[in-house]
């Protein structure tokens, strides 16, 4: 009966090489029928990427398959020669990678790039090749595909590049497409576009799809069956709906439980004078200047009005390029304004006295998205957290040490002060960044996508930590994110930004229940976490 399966993986075991091998994948078995869509879910370190790299035998050096069998389309790939594998890769199994910025060769025009794969596997004339490429680009909804052939990858946005990548994979009409976190680098709307296309086209061509992701929402929306991996072990397998709505294994239940939830018991914010007022702010970047023409500045923020009151959590939502990060930086005086004014506790940022400025640096803090680049790799955790206090008057060394310890204890990292950043996990690093922000007892924290680089369970921990600290200390928070599911959990008010302008603003519940702008409605529809919740509540 094995002929019914396109892919059969049986007892796959992968270990690191070396004198003390470590198992990365312990006996994984699963099957995939032609045209079926299978999701593989897991957090970092679960071995999900390893498993899928192993199928076309593209493992990186240092790890190897020690046991198990991979049958694809009636052929045993574990024993296939390198030559046979080359014929299978591309033509039989297509791969879409996570990073559209690096998976296309920046030095090749799109046309050349797509023709390369085709020329390798199919014997076609130039005209026919061109025709097929243009037709496929049209299918992935690239505007003006003829012109696109002569463009370079950098002329396309991330979402478009990922669609071009998809086109290049589908051109060879593979029987299986493996997509490894294909939309993690994209914003919500581009993500939806890419995945809808992927599902539509694979269904049409009868191609099997293996979607690897950490995002349960995507699995819920786009797959038939799902596998859940935990630390190299398959813990649950089954119909996607079944797995997500009635998880059997505690780990799956924990994952599902980590999805952001609606919270109803937020205290209403008192109507006091605002801590942050953004009044008609305009931020411009120098445009590209040519040889003869001078640069016209590009407006990234265009007349934004926004206030944040003490103790209020305002979510700033938008896709990539919406200007949300820039607005966050501008609120902290890190980006010069080309127009308008930003006031902190009533004082314009540009007109602060020396003392006011020093206090502003204590009272307004920033938590970054990437916990790996936001901590100086050469400094100890204690020094990093204490840096905020260097300019606060009246704090001596002993007091500083005491406050740093208290702050670290508050984020659950007691005794970590002597470590270096690389000795900590992503979640721990992000908690260090939070400790650094709260150590000076701030009035405002700008949090720029603080959880989007983290695994789902860690996301929940960090979010709850921020919520708890906010409730205890009462700071205001400008929470920048692209994920509406997170917004619903944490924010009092939502501000939706599109191309540097506010398109919607209101209390969180009101916006979610009755979005007025079309852009917000699109965002809501594209948020996978909300789809999953609908599934779980159904």
């Amino acid at each position: 009966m094995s002929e019914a399966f396109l892919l059969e993986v049986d007892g796959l075991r992968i270990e690191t090489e070396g004198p003390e091998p470590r198992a990365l994948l312990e006996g994984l078995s699963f099957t995939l029928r032609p045209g079926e869509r299978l999701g593989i879910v897991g957090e970092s370190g679960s071995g999900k990427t390893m498993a899928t790299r192993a199928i076309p035998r593209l493992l990186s050096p240092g790890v190897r398959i020690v046991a198990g069998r991979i049958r694809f389309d009636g052929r045993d790939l574990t024993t296939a020669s390198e030559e046979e594998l080359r014929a299978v890769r591309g033509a039989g199994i297509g791969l879409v990678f996570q990073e559209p910025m690096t998976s296309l060769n920046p030095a090749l025009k799109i046309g050349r790039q797509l023709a390369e794969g085709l020329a390798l596997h199919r014997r076609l004339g130039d005209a026919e090749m061109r025709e097929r490429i243009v037709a496929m680009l049209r299918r992935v909804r690239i505007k003006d595909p003829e012109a696109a052939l002569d463009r370079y990858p950098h002329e396309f946005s991330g979402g478009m590049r990922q669609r071009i990548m998809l086109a290049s994979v589908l051109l060879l009409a593979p029987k299986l497409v493996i997509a490894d976190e294909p939309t993690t680098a994209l914003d919500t709307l581009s993500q939806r576009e890419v995945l809808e296309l992927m599902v539509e086209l694979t269904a049409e061509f009868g191609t099997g799809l293996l979607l690897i992701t950490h995002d349960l929402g995507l699995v819920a929306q786009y797959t038939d069956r799902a596998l859940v991996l935990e630390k190299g072990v398959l813990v649950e397998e089954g119909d996607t709906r079944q797995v997500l709505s009635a998880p059997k294994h505690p780990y799956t239940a924990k994952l599902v439980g980590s999805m952001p939830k609606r919270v109803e018991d937020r205290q209403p914010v008192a109507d006091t004078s605002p801590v942050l007022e953004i009044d008609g702010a305009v931020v411009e970047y120098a445009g590209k200047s040519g040889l003869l023409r001078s640069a016209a500045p590009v407006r990234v923020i265009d007349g934004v009005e926004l206030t944040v009151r003490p103790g209020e959590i305002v979510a700033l939502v938008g896709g990539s390029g919406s200007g949300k990060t820039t607005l966050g930086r501008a609120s902290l005086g890190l980006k010069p304004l080309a127009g308008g004014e930003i006031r902190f506790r009533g004082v314009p940022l540009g007109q602060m006295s020396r003392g006011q400025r020093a206090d502003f640096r204590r009272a307004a803090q920033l938590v970054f998205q990437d916990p790996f680049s936001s901590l100086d790799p050469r400094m100890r955790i204690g020094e990093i957290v204490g840096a905020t206090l260097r300019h606060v008057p009246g704090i001596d060394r002993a007091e500083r040490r005491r406050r740093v310890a208290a702050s670290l204890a508050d984020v659950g990292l007691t005794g970590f002060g002597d470590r270096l950043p690389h000795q900590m996990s992503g979640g721990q690093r992000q908690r260090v960044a939070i400790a650094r922000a709260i150590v000076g007892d701030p009035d405002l924290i700008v949090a720029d996508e603080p959880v989007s680089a983290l695994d789902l369970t860690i996301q929940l921990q960090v979010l709850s930590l921020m919520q708890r600290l906010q409730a205890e200390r009462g700071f205001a928070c400008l929470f920048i994110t692209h994920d509406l599911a997170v917004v619903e959990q944490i924010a009092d008010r939502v501000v939706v930004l599109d191309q540097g302008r506010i398109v919607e603003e209101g209390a969180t519940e009101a916006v979610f229940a009755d979005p007025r702008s079309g852009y917000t409605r699109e965002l809501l529809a594209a948020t996978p976490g909300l789809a999953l919740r609908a599934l779980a509540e159904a």
Partner: protein
Amino acid sequence: MRVNVALGYGLTGLLIAVILLGFVWLPYDPIAIDLDHTLARPSLSHWLGTDEFGRDVAARAMLGARISVLIALQTVALAIALGTALGVLGGFVRGWTDRLLMTASDAILAFPGILLALAMIAVLGPSRHSIVIALAIAYLPSTIRIVRSAVLSIREREYVEASRVAGDGALYTMWRHVLPNATPPIIVLATSMFGWVVLSESALSFLGVGVPPPEPTWGNMLSSARPYMHGAAYLSIAPGLCIVATLLGINMLGDALRDRFDPRAGR
């Protein structure tokens, strides 16, 4: 990997030992001429033989080590110190300062380094000091460029922004966050530059504008050995091997040091 580290420490240690030994003991007077024993083959009395003036090659190589290494150290120190300061300045301040620095470096880079050094020595007169100054200036532009590009990428890291959020001044940020994280490329640069300087100094001596005779350097030893290549190849082999061993040792030491200073390198 471990072999490289051992080789780096070993060869560099040997070099230092030979130099130190040279201060207290040399087998012969390295500049004493002995016309009865010219071009003698290596033997028990003269381990590495004698040159065309009957001077002991082993003694000359030992003294040459001291002079060559001293010149290289001074040149590298000068070029790295100036280049790092200017590179950090250009990369961090940007604007016209940066443009001025880059234009000046490009102007210097437009000349072949050895030609530039020749011209400068012609002006300053041949002496150890002018060699150091000429070579340091020739190596300055590449130092500035490498340090500047490292700084340019580091200043965009978020921990540098975090330092601004904390209210740190630009100088402090540069000293505390940017410079320490720029050290790995600087170390690699310094060690490879050391090698290049030893070679350049040899080349200058070879061309006759290096350290004036009779003072020996590996370069002028090679240069004066050239006419005797066929009859007395050992004359070239001794200083040549010294140069190779020094370069190998210093480069491997540099790699080891770089890994040592990287906080992420697990131990």
